[in-house]
């Protein structure tokens, strides 16, 4: 059994308070809108109000702004933004700035700058805009039909990419043909708006003297933003400095450079003044990448005994108006991770990425894996229902066992370590201890549902990135320095965005160096200071890849100090230990040289062993040998009101394994927040489009996210199987809460109301939608 071990006296595994919290609690955080630069002026972005057409007129001559840049000026001054995740044969690989052809409501066509945001909005209203409208299509299946409006007419289709993941079609069909039973469903994952509480924003400041652009940006990926900004603005990378201050959440939506941010930077260069742009909430609903929006035609094949044979899906993914930075990446990952924790002899997916007149879809917590879990875990429950077996037993029977790991899936994922059976069994025990409500109202139905998943975290070995067409290096760098006064500074290319990475990196460094946590400062997010990171904080990789680098750098630095201390005490390094800030020779308490004295002398270059360099700074570049595969199982207990259609979550349980846990409080927090977002997907959230592809959910009054009353207290159990290939053994913890939650809630609803189980194929399970299902099943109130 591997329930998370207690490690007394170790900072790794300790529930320590987060280092950044006091200033955030005091109102002293510094988010991008808190940045004030002398002489700063304010921008608003002019956006297309129509979903498809050609901008004939952009006349800003009477708007009275300090600066107004229209599409032609923007196009002339910039290079297109390059997509970084390219599918084989992807028809579009870059995004033009200042394109007069508009393809979604919210597409930026101009930027206006004035002394205040309000004045900029006043000026924007005075710009004369004239569009020739074109027919629209918002739904990806409609976009596939003959005669559908074409976003790129020269292609003759809206399909931007069409490829397979895993086994080829012939192999899959052969496996399905051997299956005694095939469960087949059309499953839908709706369009989600990431909705961090802080919207996007930038302050761009061009220094004409130094020829340098400084950009404060609310971003998860400062170096990525720097590189793409430099390219687009025809500057050298070194001329651009990106500083990511405190981030008010990201969840994937701030993982690349948006056209808006180039336009604001361009405005600063033209004006020679700092320019601030803060996305407003209504803008966020159309201007920031959406996510999900996929239709799966999925099949699960099994033998007579319910042993899984094959899983397959035909994925029709909505890319939106153009492939985003990550393009078909989420749909691909849905395929790669479709097998989940189960054994299959065959698995294969066809992916089609389809253009529509909607906001492009990109990264969001769960990245394709929530979709995969929705499809797989619903199919598994449907299979259990058809077979008349317990869905947990069906899962346990089909799970890859601990002794079968490492295991390569038919979709070429090399699962590393863990015990999926243990996690689900432990979960079932936890659920069995619940108190079942005694309310005997026959109009309330109750049920418990389960969901399990394996998660791709710690992206990822750079060579693998190359194979899948993801033009990002997957390594991460950690720099650890002990300064002459004995204080410790950690720097890395990963980014804090609320997940507490500043604290957990400090814990690792303090633990390995043997210093108190208070001695360690972590500095992230400034491209002038932080080591290069191609990927930044995405894909649950900060702790796995970045933490691995900091682990190794800290150990190397600790070893060096031990060698120097040993030399100074005329002892063997192997006999030296650090106790209460003093290096001692084991068993000789009278010896001793203080940690701070070793630091001071080493920076003087004095008293070093032969061949030892002065200075105490180690840089470690960590290229992981493999993806790290976290996993989790979830259970939900729901009550369904047959008359109102309301689903109430009465209990929620999680078992989670993300390898070595650095701070259980933080990991629990990640799970809780992730589950809440999953509950949002399950019951509340859906971005919708109406007539002429006009968005219809553009405020928090129409796009509902869970509130406190909608999210129960979770019961969380941990197991801990370290990643064998990661220094420190960590796996990613950021997304395992979100990934299985929608399927788990839906499985509970299906368990509560078996009459509609076969129709629970799409989220959100809102009261209105639930009532339709209940009504069709004849379960509605017939008083």
């Amino acid at each position, binding site marked *: 059994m591997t329930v998370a071990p207690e490690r007394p006296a170790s900072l790794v595994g300790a529930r320590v308070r987060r280092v950044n919290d006091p200033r955030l609690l005091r109102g002293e955080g510094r988010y991008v809108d808190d940045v004030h630069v002398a002489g700063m002026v304010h921008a608003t972005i002019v956006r297309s109000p129509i979903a498809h057409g050609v901008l004939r007129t952009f006349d800003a001559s009477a708007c009275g702004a300090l600066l107004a840049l229209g599409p032609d000026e923007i196009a002339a001054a910039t290079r297109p933004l390059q997509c970084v995740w390219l599918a084989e044969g992807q028809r579009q690989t870059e995004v033009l700035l200042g394109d007069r052809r508009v393809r979604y409501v919210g597409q930026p066509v101009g930027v206006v700058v004035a002394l*205040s*945001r*309000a004045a900029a*909005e*006043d000026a924007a*209203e005075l710009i004369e805009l004239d569009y020739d409208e074109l027919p629209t299509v918002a739904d990806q299946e409609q976009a596939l039909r003959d005669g559908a409006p074409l976003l790129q007419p020269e292609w003759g289709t809206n399909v931007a990419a069409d490829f397979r993941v895993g086994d080829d079609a012939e192999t899959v069909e052969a496996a399905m043909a051997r299956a005694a039973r095939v469960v087949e469903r059309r499953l839908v994952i709706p369009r989600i708006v990431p909705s961090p509480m802080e919207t996007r924003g930038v302050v761009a400041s061009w220094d004409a003297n130094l020829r340098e652009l400084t950009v404060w940006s609310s971003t998860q990926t400062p170096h990525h933003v720097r590189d793409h900004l430099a390219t687009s603005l025809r500057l050298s990378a070194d001329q651009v400095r990106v500083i990511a201050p405190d981030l008010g959440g990201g969840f994937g939506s701030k993982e690349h450079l948006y056209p808006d941010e180039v336009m604001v930077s361009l405005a600063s260069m033209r004006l020679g003044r700092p320019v601030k742009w803060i996305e*407003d*909430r*209504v*803008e966020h609903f159309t201007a920031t990448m959406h996510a999900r929006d996929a239709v799966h035609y999925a099949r699960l094949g099994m033998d007579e005994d319910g042993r899984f044979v094959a899983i397959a899906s035909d994925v029709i993914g909505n890319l939106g108006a153009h492939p985003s930075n990550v393009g078909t990446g989420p749909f691909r990952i849905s395929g790669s991770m479709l097998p989940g924790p189960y054994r299959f002899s065959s698995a294969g997916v066809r992916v089609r990425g389809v253009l529509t007149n909607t906001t492009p879809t990109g990264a969001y917590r769960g990245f394709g894996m929530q979709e995969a879990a929705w499809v797989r875990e619903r199919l598994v429950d449907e299979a259990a229902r058809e077979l008349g077996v317990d869905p947990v037993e069906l899962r346990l029977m089909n799970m890859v066992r601990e002794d079968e790991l490492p295991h390569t899936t038919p979709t070429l994922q090399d699962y590393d370590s863990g015990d999926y059976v243990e996690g689900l069994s432990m979960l079932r025990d936890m659920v069995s201890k619940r108190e079942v409500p005694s*309310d005997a*109202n026959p*109009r*309330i139905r109750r049920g418990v549902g389960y969901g399990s998943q394996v998660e791709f975290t710690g992206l990822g070995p750079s060579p693998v990135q190359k194979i899948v067409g993801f033009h990002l290096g997957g390594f991460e760098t950690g720099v650890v320095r002990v300064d002459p006064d004995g204080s410790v500074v950690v720097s890395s290319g990963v980014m804090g965005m609320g997940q507490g990475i500043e604290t957990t990196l400090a814990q690792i460094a303090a633990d390995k160096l043997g210093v108190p946590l208070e001695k360690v400062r972590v500095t992230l997010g400034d491209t002038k200071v932080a080591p290069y990171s191609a990927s930044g904080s995405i894909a649950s990789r900060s702790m796995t890849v970045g933490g691995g680098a900091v682990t190794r750098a800290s150990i190397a630095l600790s070893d060096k100090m031990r060698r120097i201390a040993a030399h100074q005490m005329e002892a063997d390094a192997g006999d030296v230990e650090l106790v209460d800030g003093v290096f001692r020779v084991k068993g000789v308490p009278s010896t001793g040289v203080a940690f701070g004295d070793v630091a001071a002398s080493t920076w003087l270059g004095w008293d070093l062993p032969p061949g030892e360099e002065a200075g105490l700074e180690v840089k470690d570049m960590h290229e992981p040998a493999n993806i790290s595969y976290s996993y989790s199982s979830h259970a939900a207990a729901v009550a369904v*009101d047959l*008359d*109102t*259609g*309301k689903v109430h979550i009465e209990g929620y349980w999680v078992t989670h394994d993300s390898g070595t846990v650095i701070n259980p409080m933080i990991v629990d927090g990640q799970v809780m927040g992730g589950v809440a977002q999953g509950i949002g997907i399950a019951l*509340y959230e859906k971005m*919708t489009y109406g007539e002429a592809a006009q968005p*219809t*959910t553009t*405020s928090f*009054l*129409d796009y*509902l996210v*869970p*509130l406190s*009353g*909608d999210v129960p207290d979770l019961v969380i159990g941990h197991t801990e199987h370290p990643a064998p290939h990661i220094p420190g053994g960590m796996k990613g913890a950021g997304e395992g809460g979100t990934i299985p939650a929608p399927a788990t809630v839906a499985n509970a609803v299906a368990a509560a109301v078996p009459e509609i189980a076969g129709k629970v194929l799409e989220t959100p399970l*809102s*009261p*209105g939608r639930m*009532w*339709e299902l209940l*009504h069709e099943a004849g379960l*509605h*109130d017939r*008083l």
Partner: protein
Amino acid sequence: MKPGAFEYVAPESLEAALAVLTDRGEDASILSGGQSLLPLLNMRLARPEVLLDINRLGELATWEVTGDEVRVGALVRAARLERDAEVLATLPVLPEAISHIGHPQIRNRTTVGGNVAHADPSSELPGVLAALDGSVELRSQSGTRTLSWDEFFVSVFTTAREPEELVIGVRFPLLRGWDVRFTEMARRHGDFPIVALTVAVQEDGGVLTGLRAAATGVADRPVRLTEVEQAATGRSLDDAVIADLAGLARDAVDPQPDGAGSAEYRKHLVGTLLSRVLAPELGRSAA
């Protein structure tokens, strides 16, 4: 997302406010609690030439409980009524309905007059007003008039208030000897309800001697379910009667579909909420 330009005036007296409305009422938006108006201003969906801020009119910020009504000045904050012991004792349905309006931070600011005058077709208080046969007081420089709820609510966000008039008070009659109940179904607590229902019941020895039922969320303004009210009188509340009344309620409304649910769902909810409010032991509250 910042307001456009407007002329702003914040008079210190009702007379001064009415003078502004006489002059510029056609072009004015009235800023009361602002919890609906400010979002519209911020999104530039409301573009008044004049913003008349009535928050300095302390004379409209009082309420009184008399023998036959609770009269609420237009500027009374919802949260103050919600917590008032006398109101809670005499007309508990009012604080109950108010507790469903948004969240505490909204109710701290939103006003009873503003809520009613905004005439959102799903909002809670207009339904309470309809069930109680309440009325709305309007004043202009040429005088005061009192309109019954039925005269006041015209359509979506539209009332019988003339541009030169100001809503100065809302009158909630006390139904002595009646039991007034409120229930609603919303997607999340604090959201605008999909359907809200206020029901007043008068019983004598298990027999209904009177019933009033008003729904919001099912039409462009609050509606009274008169067929249900008539059919209920003189009957005793058993399961069959409740089912019959629920059916009548469903037939009595003709709602529009929206993102929260179909027309059929809303029709059904009216009956469900009615049966639950009449016989709470039959099912937990939907909201």
